[in-house]
């Protein structure tokens, strides 16, 4: 028996609201399947499972808000050795640890909550808490009409920019409070990378073209492989743990003012075309509020790029429990000295905010220079 729990989807998450089950008792589940949808400050997140088995009893009812680490359902027939470590329930704030309240009690009005699929879908779209609705269907079940009556803002699915802002503020305040940042900056000559990109894209239709962001992402991934002290997580109790994979969180602006940094898994293992596809998919889903749990929780290092309309330099703030963030400014034509001559080159500023508990400026500068070196050989990315 495996306990499927409310995952921690970031340093700032304390609890989540279960809004939908996509697998039901008796259904087979495979590793990577999306089994539930949870509403968080960052929108509706699709929760994946990382074991194979059969969905058993679902302990928490729809509409219930429960702390990180709470058992949501039991999965039967899971091979013992395949069990992944339980989610970091320790990350849940103390307020939730003290009272030993069973999940069913936390989810007070939930037991026996019956909701028609259409009602559940509409409630999710409108951000309505099902637990607050009185059902008029058979046995008091909630039907579509009940949800329609409540109304609610026809906001974009799952995205509440005010709550997202609060979550960003909480994570960044914690970062600035706990992480002793140091900052480094360098200029990278992007001429070779952009020339290569132009040649590569010339024979392609728009749907198959690459953007400079993919080259910088891959260059960071290679550098993270070489310098693993920037790729991992820090826990005050156990210290730094280097990550086995390079899962880069990509800072994505949400239209209207919001920010999320979902992870692109195994960046160093993917081709540039695959990375481009992943990036397009991730940006689209971030803006729709349709991210997956692993994307919210797995990042081991963050990259933030200002893009072509940005300013020269970006100094990032580390997203806990990560230990580094790389910032890229806008590529701009600037005069630079090459072999004693002043020439005009396409230059991009690259910065690193590092965690002094793990690394310092010397290693940080080697890491930044490795990113630079990788971008000088774009055909090898």
């Amino acid at each position, binding site marked *: 028996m495996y306990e499927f729990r409310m995952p921690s989807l970031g340093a700032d998450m304390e609890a989540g609201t279960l809004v939908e089950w996509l697998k039901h008792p008796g259904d087979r589940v495979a590793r990577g399947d999306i089994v539930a949808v949870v509403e968080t400050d960052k929108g509706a997140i699709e929760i994946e499972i990382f074991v194979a088995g059969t969905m058993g009893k679902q302990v928490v009812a729809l509409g219930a808000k429960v702390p990180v680490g709470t058992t949501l359902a039991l999965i039967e027939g899971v091979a013992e050795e395949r069990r992944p470590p339980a989610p970091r329930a320790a990350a849940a704030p103390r307020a939730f640890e003290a009272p030993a309240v069973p999940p069913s009690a936390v989810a007070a009005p939930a037991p026996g909550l019956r909701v028609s699929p259409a009602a559940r879908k509409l409630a999710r779209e409108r951000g309505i808490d099902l637990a607050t609705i009185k059902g008029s269907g058979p046995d008091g079940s909630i039907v579509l009409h009940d949800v329609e009556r409540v109304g609610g803002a026809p906001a974009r699915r799952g995205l509440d920019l005010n709550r997202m802002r609060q979550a960003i503020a909480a994570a960044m305040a914690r970062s600035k409070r706990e992480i002793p940042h140091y900052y480094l900056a360098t200029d990278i000559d992007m001429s070779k990378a952009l020339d290569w990109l*132009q040649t590569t*894209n*010339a024979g392609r*239709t*728009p*749907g198959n*073209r690459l*953007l*400079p*962001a993919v080259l910088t992402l891959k260059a960071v991934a290679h550098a993270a492989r070489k310098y693993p002290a920037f790729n991992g997580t820090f826990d005050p109790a156990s210290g730094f743990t280097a990550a086995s994979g390079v899962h880069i969180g990509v800072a994505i*602006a949400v*239209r*209207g003012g919001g920010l999320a940094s979902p992870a692109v898994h195994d960046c160093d293992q993917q081709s540039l075309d695959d990375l481009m596809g992943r*990036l*397009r998919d991730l*940006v689209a889903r971030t803006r729709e509020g349709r991210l997956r749990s692993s994307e919210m929780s797995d990042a081991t290092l963050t990259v933030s790029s200002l*893009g*072509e*309309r940005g300013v020269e330099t970006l100094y990032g703030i580390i997203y806990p429990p990560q230990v580094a963030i790389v910032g890229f400014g806008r590529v701009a034509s600037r005069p630079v000295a090459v072999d004693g001559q002043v020439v005009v080159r396409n230059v991009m500023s690259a910065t690193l905010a590092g965690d002094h508990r793990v690394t310092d400026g010397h290693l940080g500068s080697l890491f930044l220079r490795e990113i630079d070196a990788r971008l000088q050989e774009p055909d090898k990315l």
Partner: protein
Amino acid sequence: MTEADIRKLVVAELGNVAPETDAAMIDPDADLREALDIDSLDFLNFLEAVHKKTGVNVPEPDYEKLLTLNRAVSYLLARVAPKSAGS
């Protein structure tokens, strides 16, 4: 396609990449990236949609020729069914 058809298509596709804006209401000579707050990926998505709908494959060096609504319409008009456009 007439100029009106192309303008309608461009406005619709810009609306898809910047859903909360109305491209029909912006200054047709303003920089689209600024007026609609779109980034290079949004612009690429816009060009991909234009390519699918009109068959016009805008090469990278021509991007700057489509940076306002009016310029995008003229550019596409000159390349979509040139005969019917009378050019």
